[in-house]
């Protein structure tokens, strides 16, 4: 690099600064422990031969023997659809390189599967699950046993789904356990909120931590914290009665194409308080939040100064409270936006109204705003 050009000098200085950065300090002891256990676990499957034909007969014979013995080891680096991965160790298994269709089995001890930056899920001993999807939405198909999932909060709704029997449990930043027991699907929510409903349908029930749900295998009925519930209706106790007037959120659950939130001009349908859900449905929340995110992005773009050609990106956590009547209040950005952008966002959020519920709820989302 030629030092006479000021830009060259600047670049040289930046390179020198970057080189002077100390090596990152990690928790080496923990990492070493993790590594050695995982290395031992991965060392178990036989190494893939470079000469499959030469060793073909031996491989077939070994496969037959293993099949007869009831074990089905999977080559460590070639996950194929419906391939089976028997894991007798524990600790971290990175799923980012695994194919959809990979089966994870925790035969002798629990197994943790990680999706970097997104989620991790732990199969309890004796459980098995299939990686059913890993695109925008990670889908885990629980085949037996139970799975504890920890999902990193994401502004996109439903980035992680556990399917068990005919039940779909969808989340966007939470800690929860799903178990298959005696033909029922049990859901324990430890942090955050999850939506539960039939497979292929929109979530019918909302469980907010701490909560315990016990659902039928079709996901259409069950109980939440001891209260009997069925798709579209939640009853405080006892058997369901036909509702005289459906709440806005119940309508949204029954008809995914219908707008779940109402603008300021659209009043919430008058419903008897007893028929209201305890909280807005997850559909209602997500579509309302999507509108709020759009409005906030507009406000940020309008009220943020930037020079030509410079892109500004800000990450902030938006928290807000949805009142029982569906109005939005207590809007907070951490770290804060500029006063003008915040005032604009708060004003525009007043135009968004969620469906009425008995107690409302609070919502937090991480936003990425760009100008």
């Amino acid at each position: 690099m030629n030092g006479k050009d000021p830009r060259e000098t600047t670049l040289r200085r930046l390179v020198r600064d970057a080189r002077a950065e100390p090596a990152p300090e990690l928790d080496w002891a923990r990492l070493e422990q993790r590594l050695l256990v995982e290395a031992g676990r991965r060392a178990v499957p036989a190494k893939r031969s470079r000469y499959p034909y030469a060793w073909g007969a031996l491989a077939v014979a070994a496969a037959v023997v293993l099949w007869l013995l009831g074990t089905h080891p999977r080559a460590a680096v070639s996950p194929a659809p419906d391939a089976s991965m028997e894991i007798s160790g524990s600790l971290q298994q990175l799923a980012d390189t695994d194919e959809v269709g990979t089966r994870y089995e925790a035969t002798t001890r629990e197994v943790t599967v990680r999706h970097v930056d997104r989620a991790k899920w732990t199969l309890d001993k004796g459980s098995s699950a299939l990686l059913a999807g890993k695109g925008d939405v990670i889908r885990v198909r629980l085949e037996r046993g139970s799975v504890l999932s920890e999902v990193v909060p994401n502004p996109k709704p439903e980035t992680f789904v556990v399917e068990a029997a005919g039940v779909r449990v969808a989340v966007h930043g939470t800690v929860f356990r799903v178990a298959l027991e005696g033909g029922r699907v049990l859901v324990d929510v430890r942090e955050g909120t999850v939506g539960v409903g039939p497979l292929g349908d929109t979530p019918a029930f909302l469980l907010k931590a701490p909560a315990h749900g016990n659902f039928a295998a079709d996901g259409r009925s069950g109980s939440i914290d001891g209260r009997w519930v069925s798709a579209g209706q939640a009853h405080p106790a006892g058997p369901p009665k036909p509702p005289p007037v459906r709440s806005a959120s119940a309508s949204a659950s029954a008809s995914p194409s219908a707008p779940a939130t109402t603008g300021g001009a659209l009043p919430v349908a008058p419903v008897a308080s007893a028929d209201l859900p305890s909280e807005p449905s997850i559909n209602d929340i997500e579509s309302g939040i999507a509108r709020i995110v759009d409005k906030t992005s507009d406000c940020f773009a309008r009220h943020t100064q930037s020079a030509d050609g410079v892109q500004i990106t800000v990450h902030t956590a938006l928290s807000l409270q949805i009142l029982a009547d569906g109005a939005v209040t207590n809007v907070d950005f951490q770290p804060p936006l500029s006063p003008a952008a915040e005032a604009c966002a708060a004003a525009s959020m007043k135009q968004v109204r969620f469906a009425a519920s008995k107690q409302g709820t609070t919502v937090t989302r991480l936003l990425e705003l760009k100008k």
Partner: protein
Amino acid sequence: MEPPSLVERCQSGDAEAFRELFRTHRQDVARLAQRMLGRQTDLEDIVQEVFLQVHRSIRDFRHGARFSTWLYRVTVNVVLMHRRAAKSRPVFGEAPEHVAAVDQRPRADEQLERQRRVHAFHRLLDRLSEKKRLVFVLHELEGLAPGEIAKIVGSPVLTVRTRLFYARRELLALLAEEPSLAGLAEELTAAASAPDDASPAKEPA
């Protein structure tokens, strides 16, 4: 130079040797991964994955080659795989710029300023194509010769040199687009007439 016995012991499945190998090289791997990524998110996972790959493939390592070059190649592949996996999703792990700016913890101004410059530099690097960024990091930050980089990335030396040339040229053009570096450019320009431009005495330890 890696003692051959250590690698050989690893190749024979000696767990203690693998532990020693990890302890010897872990910081190099972490540093390269951090330089390639520009941030520390998932660094532990990446380092773990690198050494798992080493553990899995070390029998393929041939003693005619340098172990460090082979390890670089494994690290580069794991980081690139990680970047590709992360490309399709938003990144929320990095602290917002203005949070760092209002950080009240006591720090030396010079150190804070340098960190800010390094972050800005990594933002610039992030705007280069994968191939150009990789050779630039390996050459300028890791100090590897083009010949060794060629072995790591599996390209001819001439290609590496070409990528380096264009990487530098693009970075020079991008410098003007990074407002947080404007002050540094002015400061260095003003100091250009001084006899000792590098001012090594002012460099933080």
